[in-house]
């Protein structure tokens, strides 16, 4: 397990190939406890492959991946209850109501029934969905579903939250509101968060650090962002341009936009 001085997540010279296709090439990066880190890149840059390796669902071919001091793939169960994921699509189970979907992770962790219900209701309230507890998935809007998905991830009280393009399927306004709410919750509860996105504004809006990935996944730009920088529109505009330039200047075509 990690101590305070060690990075919470580290990737060292990670390499991953699918057949002849190189998805990740010599990627190294570190994430510290309590940070919100964005992995930003064009479609096909290997962001989701990196995320899958961090989640432990695929192994790297070379290099080393450590999450909370363990290899997430080799020691898959060691991260039980320590991490949670919110995906691009909500992935809610349609036979469960909103509150029952939020309870899923807690049930898997075998938490007592009463505690599970209490925690699920509290998280639904935190993501501003009070009153929708008994709604089935088809009765909720896209934004509401994504909020339930976030509540499901956060309800297990994970140390680490992964977001895989969680806001990208929502309209601009809903996405903006949701990511602000999410960032506030993550900072309030001191979670570490890694989120994958192809939208520059998502990253600039909430990340403490941004790793811009070029294909095959390797860091081509690393940026630190804080509240002071965010308050300066000119600096943010320059950062946006720098990122767009690093990505390859084809942001419009690939959906990378502000």
């Amino acid at each position, binding site marked *: 397990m990690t101590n305070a001085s060690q990075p919470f997540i580290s990737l060292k010279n990670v390499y991953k190939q699918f057949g002849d296709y190189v998805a990740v090439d010599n990627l190294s990066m570190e994430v510290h406890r309590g940070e919100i880190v964005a992995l930003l890149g064009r479609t096909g840059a290997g962001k989701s492959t990196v995320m899958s390796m961090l*989640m432990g*669902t695929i192994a790297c071919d070379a290099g080393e991946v450590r999450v909370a001091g363990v290899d997430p793939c080799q020691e*898959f*169960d060691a*991260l*039980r*209850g320590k*991490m*949670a*994921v919110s*995906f691009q*699509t909500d*992935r809610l*189970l*349609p*036979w*469960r*109501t909103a509150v029952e979907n939020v309870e*899923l*992770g807690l*049930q*898997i*962790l075998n938490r007592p029934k009463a505690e599970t219900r209490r925690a699920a209701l509290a998280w639904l309230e935190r993501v501003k969905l009070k009153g*929708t507890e008994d*709604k*089935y*998935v*088809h*009765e*909720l*809007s896209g934004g*509401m579903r994504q909020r339930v998905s976030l509540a499901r991830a956060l309800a*297990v009280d994970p140390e680490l939250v*992964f977001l895989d393009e969680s806001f990208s399927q929502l309209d601009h306004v809903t996405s903006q509101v949701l990511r602000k709410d999410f960032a506030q919750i993550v900072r309030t509860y001191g979670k570490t968060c890694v989120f994958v996105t192809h939208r520059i504004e998502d990253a600039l809006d909430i990340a403490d650090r941004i790793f811009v990935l070029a294909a095959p996944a390797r860091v081509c730009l690393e940026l630190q962002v804080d509240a002071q920088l965010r308050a300066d529109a000119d600096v943010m505009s320059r950062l946006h341009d720098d990122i767009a330039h690093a990505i390859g200047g084809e942001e419009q075509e690939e959906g990378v936009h502000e």
Partner: protein
Amino acid sequence: MNAMSKPLDKPGIKLAAKPAEGSAGRRELIALAVVIAGLALAMEIGSRFTEDYILPSPVVVGRALIDLLTVDYMHVVITLGRLGMAIVFSLIVGVTIGLLMGTSKKAGPYLKSLVIIDTGIPALSWMLIAVFWFKDPEARIFFILTVILLPFYALNVYEGLRAIPRDWVDMMESFRPSRLQVMRYLIVPHIVPYIFLTTKSVIGYAIRMVIFAELVASAVGIGSRMSFAQSTFRIDQVMAWTFLLVILNLALQSAANLAEKRLLKWRAEAKVR
């Protein structure tokens, strides 16, 4: 209905609102009543131009039906009991086999081959084989129905397993569940609609099979009574039994629909325009 719970319409697909469901149900009932009345009328007209042993009037068939229900009701109970036992057993074993087909790398391919071979064997072959293999009529009928119904459950559940979205599996995996938890929280709820679909599909077929089986292998039950009615030239009784079987089929289908509606209330009912 507020904005939050308002179902979203998609092109070509209209989500049915609750009142529309009720009116659709009424329309179906009215259509059924009209068809029955039409058939009864045609039968009545036909009976006036033919001999009684060819086509009796609906009134004669109705009297025969009342007689059967008062005198021979035990045969109905026996047939229903056989049917129920065979369906429940086939459901339990078929679902288990289907789950193993989809989840066990070792046993799956063998079970799948076995089930596919079973589906290729005609029902009549099983009936004749059962007569050779089993002395007890109950065992014969149970065996015949089971070997015929079981593959439907196994194959549909297997297909249900294959239809589980990879996204859901990944989502579950992110919480690091045990295999039992994946089964309990994901697989079993996902295959419930497939079990209902199979049950509704096999009810009519199972009724036909149990009647055949009773005709071949038993001295009691509706099938054997129909055979007796045929041998005594009682076409009114044959028709009365037939009418009763249709009613039984409709009643069982309705019961399955009702149970499905209660258990699968989470599903948004879509209606294609």
